[in-house]
């Protein structure tokens, strides 16, 4: 089973599944599906050794109230870290993504999951998110345009280590 996502500016078929605990399921007892899968943070924390045995490439996802501090040194083990946007207006995931990139120097894929829409993709990209599971009811081809909203930015962020004021001179030259 695969779904279409945007990865690094392209639409690709992708095999990763996202495990979400439903009510009644617990992190301790939920059956671990065959991979590749993004595990909820709680499952990862409860069953880290089991997951490491089971998956050659483990994946995890953070909800908007879960910070990358909870992964810390484990970061480098993951091929993919998902950041969930329960609502597109919940902006905590932007901070999580920047911290993963800029503080924890995570170099793997960061994937936005949840309420992922065209008009937020540009911001996500700037914060270091490089894959986007665009909400299923939206036109993913159209959404791709969201990554190209602006050609220049004022601030330093995960995609651009220097703020514009350190680059203007070069622009002018």
């Amino acid at each position, binding site marked *: 089973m695969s779904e279409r996502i945007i990865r690094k500016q392209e639409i690709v078929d992708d095999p990763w599944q996202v495990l979400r605990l439903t009510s009644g399921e617990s992190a301790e007892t939920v059956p671990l599906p065959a991979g590749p899968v993004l595990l909820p943070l709680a499952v990862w924390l409860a069953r880290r050794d089991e997951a490491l045995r089971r998956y050659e490439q483990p994946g995890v996802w953070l909800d908007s109230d879960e910070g990358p501090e909870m992964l810390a040194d484990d970061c480098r083990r993951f091929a993919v870290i998902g950041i969930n946007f329960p609502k597109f207006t919940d902006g905590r995931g*932007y901070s999580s993504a920047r911290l993963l990139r800029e503080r924890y120097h995570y170099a793997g894929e960061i994937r936005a999951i949840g309420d992922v829409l065209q008009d937020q993709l540009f911001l996500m990209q700037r914060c270091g998110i490089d894959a986007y599971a665009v909400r299923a009811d939206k036109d993913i081809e159209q959404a791709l345009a969201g990554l190209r909203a602006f050609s220049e930015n004022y601030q330093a962020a995960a995609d651009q280590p220097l703020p514009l004021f350190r680059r203007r001179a070069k622009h002018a030259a």
Partner: protein
Amino acid sequence: MYRYDSIDQQIIDERVAQYRDQIARHLAGDLSTDELRPLRLQNGLYIQRHGPMLRIAIPYGMLAATQLRKLAEISQRYDRGVGHFTTRQNMQLNWPQLEQTPAILGELARVEMHAVQTSGNCIRNITTDQFAGVAPDELTDPRPYCELLRQWSTFHPEFAFLPRKFKIAVNAAATDRAVIRAHDIGLELLRDEGGEIGVRIFVGGGLGRTPILGKVIREFLPRRHLLSYLEAILRVYNRYGRRDNMYKARIKILVQALGIDDFRRQVEAEWAHLKDGPTTVPDTEFARIAAHFAPPAWENLPAVDELHAARVAGDLAFANWVRRCVHPHRTPGYAAVTLSLKAPGAAPGDISDTQMLVVADLADRFSFGELRVTHEQNVVLADVRLRDLHEVWQIARRHRLATANIGLLTDIICCPGGDLCALANARSVPIADAVNEKFDDLDYLFDIGDISLNISGCMNSCGHHHVANIGILGVDKNDEEWYQITVGGQQGNAAAIGKVIGPSFHAHEVPLVIEALVTVYVEQRLPSERFIDTLQRVGIEPFKARAYAGRDRRRGARQENREVVNV
């Protein structure tokens, strides 16, 4: 003032294209109403009681005459020929059509204007002193700092979806004219013992439902660290501010819940990672921006202009205007002028298209082509020669821009209220009108002297009623308009939140209550005491007693309501 380079222009042009596409997708059904809402708000577009309202950004209140002419043209072509200046120094148009808003933003971009982040849960327009660059009591010009912050906050990718709106104000003068402690972040520019410029940072202030004055998080931060430190504050807020209840989502609630010391610890811990990184601002960047605010070509003039002095001596009406509307300037022979948008019968802060053109011409002829919008909703010409004041006054007077009431009771800060705003509980402009009718004698207004009266139509407190000597707040009781009165608030260095005097009043009682409060002051004042001084000396009780004297709250209310319904 700051002029765009090709990059600034490109960013704003791309914003217009982005917004045009968003509206097109919405109209095509690809972007739902809920999905569009935060996007349009971050472009200043509200859906109001009668339709859309567009709030246009005026960064830190600075406008060029050409920009004001463009606003006049837009208000003629796309609206009803009137704009409204807000307490964030922005301009609101109340009657645009949704479908035309992309075209309006396109027009604005041609004169280096936009509506970026004038609403939404993001960093809003930075505000400052309307006398920036000309005030005699100023340490340094705050506008380069505001512009630095404007650029940093524009489309900041991490802080576009904060828990709630975020307001920053900057003051660099001995007297705070920017109400910095009523802001999420207030910045006060200072010089340390070594002569280095830095900022004292207040955090967690705000009006609204829970008015709180900001607390000091940093006594002195060298200016080069300004942006990285603000990123640390915003990051802590973005991650840990409440998102479950919009009434508890402002940073002030987080600061209150943690306590300023714990909040400071978290910010400092975050900042330790960011300090001295690439967002550290080099002196060359401060210098680059400051060059845009270089003083205009002031002439060498004597400090006293004989002709001006003679006109003041010979014309009482002119002298009154000079007394209230003309302000000291750091350069001999010059003054700053406030053009009052508080003429009797006018909605406070409203300016017609004709007035906009007149003000633009005045700016071109007498003030180097620039003007400022004040948070008190008036307009300032900052660099007028003393000898030109009489002519400015004559022209302004012909267009109802010279009411001599700046700082007086009728210089009312007032939101648009229930006539236009979908959030309002009550109308505010008719209250301002009624106060004007009650106090129509300029001599009496002069006798009452310095006093602030602010009106908000709801708890959002756009009219800053909390920080007024007399504050009026519209409240809703069983679908009826009532007004709660506070006294003792003030702006400035001794900023304070007013206290509620008791049960609310019906609309027609409000002018009588104001009169009662003023009368207590006039009776009890000592020589040279302002209203606020007398209030602080004698306490709230005599004011309260007079306000309610002879009023049976509940029975009176019912009768009044019937009258209103019958009307």
